[in-house]
């Protein structure tokens, strides 16, 4: 079985100007969305107390609110979590030392609402921790970007390094925009997802760059755009299969993996689609427009694949 019986000859690079515009618009839109709509930050980043309470039968949120009011709980937010019989109560940063006692008070206030009420999860994050978690996450992203840039520049010359860097910036930004649009709770798991997107995007880019490098060596007379198109077309079958496999796995995770994994999985799914696109139209195209030619891969000494075997 083969999806593409013959290597297609789509002229990807001919259309790159249009895609630049679209990419720029999507990135701008994503940034605007994050600024205007904001991210649904969880306690990981805002600090505060979150309680997940399970009821033996679905409960009405209004009744939950009035029960909490009656119990003397202040400044709370309530939302249903998963099925209608689970709710999430969010409280502002309190004395973290007594979070457990606070949880008991909330549970006590909610007990009359159903025959069985259980406290499934309590998370309390102090302001000093939440700030640090955010800084750590940002630091991790920056360090990853830097390392990837250096590595790609080393392996493929700087034009490709810049191409993959722009793609690596492009993908998480668009993914964050999508997360803001969908209102997915932004927690540490989602940060892990964003970093995965980054990794996936770089992986995809590297595979295509690898083929571009090879084709530049073998098609020395051809136009750079032609060479890049050829490389993308030759790897297209692989790109479709791999993205398809990854996407299907992640969709299974999103639909069957439970509430805790959903945000993570949806972010990944978005990232896989964007990562696949960006490898072709952001990374490849930018390298081309920065003037990538066969000269980039004509090293002084002869280097073959054999030398690279372990």
């Amino acid at each position: 079985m083969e999806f593409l019986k013959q290597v297609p000859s789509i002229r990807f690079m001919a259309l790159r100007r249009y895609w630049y515009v679209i990419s720029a618009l999507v990135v701008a839109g994503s940034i605007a969305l994050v600024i205007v709509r904001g991210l649904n930050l969880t306690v990981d980043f805002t600090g505060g107390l979150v309680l997940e309470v399970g009821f033996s039968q679905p409960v009405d949120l209004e009744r939950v609110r009035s029960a909490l009011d009656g119990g003397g709980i202040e400044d709370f937010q309530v939302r249903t979590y998963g099925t209608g019989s689970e709710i999430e109560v969010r409280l502002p940063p309190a004395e973290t030392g007594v979070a457990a006692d606070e949880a008991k008070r909330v549970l006590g206030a909610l007990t009359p609402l159903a025959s069985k009420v259980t406290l499934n999860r309590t998370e309390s994050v102090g302001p000093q921790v939440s700030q640090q978690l955010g800084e750590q996450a940002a630091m991790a992203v920056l360090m990853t970007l830097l390392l990837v840039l250096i590595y790609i520049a080393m392996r493929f010359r700087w034009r490709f390094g810049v191409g993959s860097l722009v793609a690596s910036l492009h993908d998480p930004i668009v993914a964050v925009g999508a997360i803001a649009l969908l209102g997915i709770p932004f927690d540490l798991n989602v940060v892990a997802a964003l970093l995965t997107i980054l990794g996936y995007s770089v992986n995809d880019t590297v595979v295509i760059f690898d083929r571009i490098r090879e084709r530049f060596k073998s098609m020395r007379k051809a136009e750079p755009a032609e060479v890049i198109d050829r490389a993308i077309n030759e790897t297209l079958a692989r790109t479709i299969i791999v993205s398809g496999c990854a996407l299907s796995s992640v969709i299974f995770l999103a639909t069957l993996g439970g509430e805790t994994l959903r945000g993570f999985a949806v972010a990944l799914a978005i990232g896989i689609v964007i990562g696949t696109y960006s490898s072709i139209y952001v990374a490849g195209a930018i390298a081309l427009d920065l003037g990538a030619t066969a000269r980039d891969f004509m090293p002084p000494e002869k280097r073959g694949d054999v030398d690279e075997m372990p």
Partner: protein
Amino acid sequence: MQRYPLWKGVLLTAIMVAAILLALPNWYGESPALQMSRRDRAAFDAATTAEISDALKAAAIPTDEVYVDSDNRLWARFASVDEQLKARDLIQAKYEGQYAIALTNASRAPDWLNSLGLEPMSLGLDLRGGMLLVYEVDTEGAVAQLLQRMERDFRKVLRDARIQYQEVAVSGNSVQVTLRDPSETAAARKVLLEYDRQLTFAPDSAPGSIAATLGEAAIKERQNFAIQQNITALENRVNALGVAETVVQRQGQNRIAVQVPGVQDASEVVRLLGKVATLEFRLVDTANSPMEAARTGRAPLGTKLYKQRDGSPVLLKRDVIATGEQLIDASFAPSQGEPAVSVKLDSRGGDEMLRTTRENLNRPMAVVFIEKERELVQRDGHEVALDRSKEEVISVASIRGVFSNNFQITGLSAVEGTELAKLLRAGALAAPIIIVEQRVIGPSVGKDNIEKGTRALAIAGIFLFAFMAMYYRIFGLIADIVLLTNVVLIVAMLALFNAALTLPGIAGIVLTVGTAVDANILIYERIREEIAIGASPWAAINAGFDKAFSAIADSNVTMMMSGIVLFLFGSGPVRGFAVTLCIGIVASMFTALIGSRALIYLFYGRRRRIERLAI
């Protein structure tokens, strides 16, 4: 006919056998269990074990197994969480307070695996349920304590050298001394240096004034000491909970993370671990009226106003005789029917105590019990963290004799005495700690997470396997075997490194399996390309592997770098993800490049001629 190098085959087989063995305990899984240890730390004898076993039987709670482990803990394994909870309630009711009971999981693996020391990989709190507490050590408080001690000791040193001073006071990171007679400055410096060689004096002080500053190194040393002492204290307290697989570790600059798996009463755990208790021994000031001080709210010079437990005021001298820091041991030892805590001090505290008791026989001495809490208070619309220490005089007793480093504190109830002794014994704290992060995951959530996560993983896997087999036929099947091997290797490595599997960790496995699929697809697409341009089967296979290598290596190296960065800079879930990502990448490189090729040789290698490849 093509041969695969024998040594590679042997090595590969050896690695796989080891991996399967390491991963095997996970196949059997774990069952809910109770883990009990005796509060008096005595050993379980056969009779007690049988008694508990019978009690469970009598209550019609079926157990899979009841046994005592080498750490002298009794384990009872159950088929379901329901039975586990019932059993706990029963034992708790029947043997009130005799045992520390923890809900946990026990391996179902056969004995020969257990005896090899092989255990299932540990699960993160998000998968098994449990409690995470992150404490912040008040390192500034530790430094402040040190400065206070310097202040106190300076007074003593100067007094002993008969150098009169106007004032000795802490200001910032230094202790400021103002002498009565400026001509004695040099002499004062000399005796202070004799007291501590590491003191540095600020140069431009006015005549008769000396500022001894605490150096950067001294501050750092003090802070590290405070954290280490707290870690030891928390470890002791956590161990006292009697729960298996607890973790206490330093996290970053001044934090300590504590993980307590299983179901606990969260408030109780917080209370037991978090209470920052210390003692101060001070003399009672009998010259002034505490009532008067309480009324005006102003304590006379050199004294401090405290409240006793019944609320009545008491004036204590400012000089601290000894603190909890100098405490070596404390135990609850009722004497003559009255609850008492027997206290042992170190030699410095003992010396001070000896001097004080000798000079103040029959005068009252007080024990101040200090508990520190951090409260967030609204101030000008902002949340402000305020340290609130609850200082309470728990006992005022006459000094009945001259004693030094061994004495008793009375005036507590039995419960308070036991608790105080336990907390003090666990290690007197130098620096206060506060909780800055607290997460409690219920066991049902953990179970739900692992069930759904595994199911999603299994379905995604089946889908992927079916697709690969359909799309690449024999080679697809080979890839499937390789992918399965990949998962076994990941699990084995997690077990080997004792890394806990978390929910993001499962996602990390999904991702690396995806990368492994990519590696195989890259190779197979290459082989197809080579066949398309007319290469012979064996040439196509070899060229496929060789040419795909650079792409696989480059992409895996970049992924690995991201994984390492995540591990270094991330924490919690991000780190859990990074661990499986790194392990998974190693496994996927190994299986795709070596395992896959070996299987192809195994399948095609013996044939004299291959007409065409089933790819």
